[in-house]
């Protein structure tokens, strides 16, 4: 009976259209934010930050981007890693060439450049769909991989091909320790997640979903397919770009193009399939899940006295992801986020079965 909306009458459309129309959800979200912003910084260990919290927040951001394109607008992409790389290398080049530039502006520029590149690679989407579009974005991925490995100016002629950044500051504040980095990333990711949520519940979002669900009908209600698809590519790649810059600057700190290769693209796609296509919440759940499974496999079986070899663990990982992806694609395309939703619906009726 805890999760109950009875008695909560929405007196206005504004209330009904709120992101969390049900009070318990609002409370839950507030608690979550307090935990993330206050409790975590007071208690988290270095390991929790660098192995779990920081990477899952950053990858969730890229997953939101991919979810906008694939989950909301229906355009499959295997190029997210490439767009993250555009963000990372744009940020890097700005950083070494215009060192006085504010970190926030660097991130903005990283997103903008990725958006531009995303739009260019999105143009074929007017003519091709589904599998063929996936192949076209795969080509984008390989092309971008090649560019960042083979154009020396982009990696500042570093002999090893790997680049890095020193300690960073924003408005004079250090973003160096795990706590500092975590809080900075949390702020950006929370803000961008809110923006994404706003977009998908506005008319831009409805246009994206219309294109996804039936492009023919979308056209007859006045949606311009190319414009709409390109806007999804732009927003999606912007998110990927910012995420890529954060990944490089605040998680890896020194990196090479392989950090953004096809495996990154695939793992992001897995995140949104498992987390939930067409769900912002699902992007977070998916990112955390994909990150936690290997950690879980590494730590729990040995603790239970079942030591597993590294090879076994990585095989297990693939098997689990594979099985889950097949399960979600066939049974529940809305992923873990949908299961959470169903759980809540059950709770809403609990303890009455109907």
């Amino acid at each position: 009976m805890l999760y109950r909306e009875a008695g909560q009458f929405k007196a206005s459309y504004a209330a009904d259209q709120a992101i969390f129309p049900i009070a318990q959800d609002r409370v839950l979200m507030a608690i979550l934010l307090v935990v993330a912003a206050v409790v975590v910084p007071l208690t988290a260990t270095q390991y929790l930050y660098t192995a779990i919290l920081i990477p899952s927040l950053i990858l969730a951001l890229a997953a939101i981007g991919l979810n906008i394109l694939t989950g909301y607008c229906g355009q499959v992409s295997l190029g997210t890693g490439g767009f993250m790389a555009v963000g990372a290398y744009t940020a890097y080049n700005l950083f070494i060439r215009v060192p006085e530039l504010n970190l926030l502006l660097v991130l903005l520029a990283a997103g903008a450049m990725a958006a531009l590149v995303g739009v260019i690679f999105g143009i074929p989407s007017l003519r091709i769909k589904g599998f063929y579009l996936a192949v076209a974005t795969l080509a984008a991925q390989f092309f971008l991989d090649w560019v960042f490995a083979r154009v020396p100016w982009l990696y500042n002629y570093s002999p090893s091909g790997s680049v890095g950044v020193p300690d960073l500051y924003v408005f004079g504040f250090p973003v160096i320790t795990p706590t500092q980095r975590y809080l900075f990333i949390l702020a950006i990711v929370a803000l961008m997640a809110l923006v994404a949520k706003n977009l998908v519940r506005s008319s831009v979002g409805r246009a994206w979903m219309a294109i996804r669900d039936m492009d023919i009908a979308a056209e007859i209600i006045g949606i311009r397919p190319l414009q709409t698809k390109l806007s999804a590519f732009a927003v999606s790649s912007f998110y990927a770009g910012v995420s890529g810059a954060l990944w490089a600057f605040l998680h890896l700190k020194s990196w090479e193009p392989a950090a953004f290769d096809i495996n990154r693209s695939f793992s992001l796609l897995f995140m949104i399939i498992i987390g939930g296509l067409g769900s912002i919440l699902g992007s977070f759940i998916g990112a955390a899940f994909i990150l936690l499974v290997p950690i879980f496999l590494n730590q729990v079986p040995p603790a239970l006295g079942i030591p597993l070899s590294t090879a076994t663990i990585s095989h297990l990982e693939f098997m689990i992801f594979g099985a889950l992806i097949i399960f979600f694609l066939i049974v529940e395309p809305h992923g873990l986020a949908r299961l959470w939703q169903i759980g809540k619906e059950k709770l809403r009726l609990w303890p009455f079965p109907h």
Partner: protein
Amino acid sequence: MTQQSGRKIGGPLLKVQGISLSFGGVKALSDVSFEIRQHEILAIIGPNGAGKSSMLNVINGFYHPQSGTVTYKGATRKQMQPHEAAEQGIARTFQNIALFKGMSTLDNIMSGRLLKMKVNFFLQALYWGPAQREEIAHREVVERIIDFLEIQAIRKTPVGKLPYGLQKRVELGRALAAEPDLLLLDEPMAGMNVEEKEDMCRFVLDVNEEFGTTIALIEHDMGVVMDISDRVVVLDYGRKIADGVPDEVRANKDVIDAYLGVSH
């Protein structure tokens, strides 16, 4: 939904002249001409494969005819793009429902108002001030449509989960949300039971009456056609064989041979 109410059939709103359309060897339409007059309900009938749906597709720019012209609101063109047709106030429903299956009833109908929503992308991203006000203003219009179509209970249901009859209703709602001047309905009552048909007839008549919306609809049920239409155009094998008020058409020898004769 703020158009002039009452209805008085006026001059032609849309005129098709000498439309011919073929797909490879198949002639879907040959030299078809007729007009749709302001505020009327025009029925387009004909046996299966007569070219009725193709005609609607030509009107809203979905198919591009090899020859002929479409004159709409005084401007003559050879063809248009679907989104142009939408911008000019032509809305339609499809024979095989074309809803956005993953979206709720509310979102489907809201999407019908897309062309009327002007707030820019950045304000939408912030969901702030003008963006929120616009969203709510349109929500109010959409809620009136929902009340009118009596689908309050399925507001938040994903349309893919709705039964066929309700989906047809939601699709009508989406078309109405655009406040069209010309509404094209492709078999809005197909596959419905008697009650659902009656409801749908009532909606069509009410829309026409209250908002003065001009309606062209395709329908196979002759009872419905005779009841609700002001005029009837009959197509057979891609050609127009009759055009007139229902009683005239019913008495027409060619029509009896080609169409009524077949079904009786």
